[in-house]
């Protein structure tokens, strides 16, 4: 992948982050921390990896992405909207009565959402079912799933991990959003998951460790996963919860809290600064401005 396109993805990720913070701020509730930590991976997936057709969200040959950590719905919604599944203006209706943008993803209400999630620990099993179906049909589409590091404390995750390797599901790639935090504090203090890579290896998975904010590393690992035969791959992605908003970074208190008006303003300033810095590096006008800041600011 050329550096030019990685640059473009980084700019898109900055827009996705902006949308996340803005929609949660507007809604007055939601989960910014784990949405922001997942933003680079979701951008890489929706703008480079996944074979999709936003005009035809039910296209049978599409790749499937399951957001197992469903509380990061704002990141998924931002990526889907930017990718053209529905108008960006819909993001304003996050968490409102009657909105297709439910607090947690609902596959029956919003095009592009592949699984209803929100109760943690269930998405990997669902993804195993999808991957088994693809294999039965000799289909070429692939299955991707994202898990939280707190989420993998759920026993069901390990039941699914066992099943995926038992069936040699090399059409399945998981991403672990390894941000080190859950609601009540650091994952290692609440309930240790260490050594995380060894656990997945012991369950028969191919494990690749990357910096989850380095888009070229994410893409490289994803390609390696695709080329790995006979077993599923998990990409253990080191991330920072709240990434991109200085006062949210690394703070578990920002797991499930919306910014107030003043905090929102500061967050958006920071993210716009990031977007223009990225654009300047690339000698192009500010990415957020380019994307019609007037309608969303």
């Amino acid at each position, binding site marked *: 992948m050329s550096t030019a396109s990685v640059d473009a993805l980084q700019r898109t990720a900055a827009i996705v982050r902006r949308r996340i913070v803005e929609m949660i701020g507007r809604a007055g509730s939601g989960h910014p921390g784990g949405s922001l930590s997942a933003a680079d991976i979701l951008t890489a997936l929706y703008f480079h990896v996944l074979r999709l057709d936003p005009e035809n969200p039910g296209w049978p040959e599409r790749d499937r992405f399951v957001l197992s950590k469903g509380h990061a719905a704002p990141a998924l919604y931002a990526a889907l909207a930017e990718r053209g599944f529905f108008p960006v203006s819909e993001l304003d209706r996050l*968490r409102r009565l009657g909105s297709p943008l439910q607090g947690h993803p609902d596959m029956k209400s919003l095009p592009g959402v592949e699984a209803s999630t*929100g109760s943690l620990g269930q998405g990997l099993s669902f993804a195993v079912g999808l991957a088994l179906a693809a294999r039965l049909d000799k289909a070429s589409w692939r299955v991707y799933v994202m898990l939280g590091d707190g989420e993998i404390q759920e026993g069901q995750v390990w039941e699914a991990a066992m099943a995926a390797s038992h069936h040699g599901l090399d059409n399945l790639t998981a991403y672990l959003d390894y941000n080190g935090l859950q609601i009540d504090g650091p994952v290692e203090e609440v309930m240790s998951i260490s050594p995380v890579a060894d656990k997945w290896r012991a369950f028969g998975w191919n494990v690749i460790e990357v910096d989850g904010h380095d888009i070229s590393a994410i893409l490289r690992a994803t390609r390696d996963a695709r080329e790995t035969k006979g077993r599923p791959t998990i990409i253990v992605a080191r991330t920072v919860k709240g990434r991109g908003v200085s006062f949210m970074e690394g703070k578990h208190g920002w797991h499930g809290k919306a910014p107030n008006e003043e905090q929102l303003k500061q967050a958006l300033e920071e993210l716009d600064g990031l977007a223009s810095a990225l654009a300047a590096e690339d000698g192009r006008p500010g990415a957020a401005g380019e994307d019609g800041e007037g309608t969303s600011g």
Partner: protein
Amino acid sequence: MTNPTEPKKVATREAYGEALVEAGGARPDIVVLDADLSASTRTQLFAEKYPDRFFNMGIAEANMIGVAAGLAAAGKIPFASTFAVFAPGRVYDQIRLSVAYPRLGVKIASTHAGLTVGEDGASHQSLEDLALARVLPNMTVIVPADGAETRAAVFAAIEHEGPVYLRLGRVPVPAIYPPDKRFTVGRYDMLKEGRDVALVACGLMVEVCLQAAVTLAAEDILAGVVNASTVKPLDEETLTYVASRAGAVVTAEEHSVLGGLGGAVTEFLSGIHPVPVVRVGVDDRFGQSGRPGELLEAYGLTASRVADAARKAVALKKGR
């Protein structure tokens, strides 16, 4: 009875957290478990005061219930807390086999029950937990109506031998009782006598029924209000009394109309004193995101819907 000197609203989950701290001092056998929601369930208050007797099990509810059962079998009084959608919802068989069947004294105190979870939406709104919990043999099911009743119910649960499911809410609710309210498992309070129809409610619908009774009184329909805070075992004596006195019953709960308080009351009365029972609750469907008040309105959990149901019950009675 209503206490106008106490206008402050308190969430039942908050009263639960405070009651645990209060009870924990005198009872070193009380232990508390949570599954990464201690700030929300308010068990955090106990964790801060008695860190040695608090176990954060991580996001692993099934394990939490199993561990609580082991603690109970070895003489502890465990309170295990998460959201109602996860216990009893997610961990039903662990509760059934490890807790209810051996009749172990695990107190499952779940918060964020019902629609008033609000913006998190359907995935987090438990509208089925009363149905699930009450069909388990040996299980006691309690839904307190306000902060004072919650406190009293926590103390009653500690004294009660065997498993208890305590259903708690997220949003602050008005006080119905004075702070020194006492609680007896399986006994209902008649908050209001009424000759024409009995409104039998639990949780935040008790207050809603009190409001409905005022509306109905203006139409000369005298509605009694019963706080049916023990959904299992039912207070059969009080239910028989109000059914025979009024001859018409309305049930009201922040739960599906299937299988909860309405289901329990209907099952009981149909076999012993059949009268019309009109159930107010959430129709057979899932919740959704929205503000708590908006959702109660949209799903018909309002005083005006209770009043409609009461008029219907009275009409049914007369039509017989």
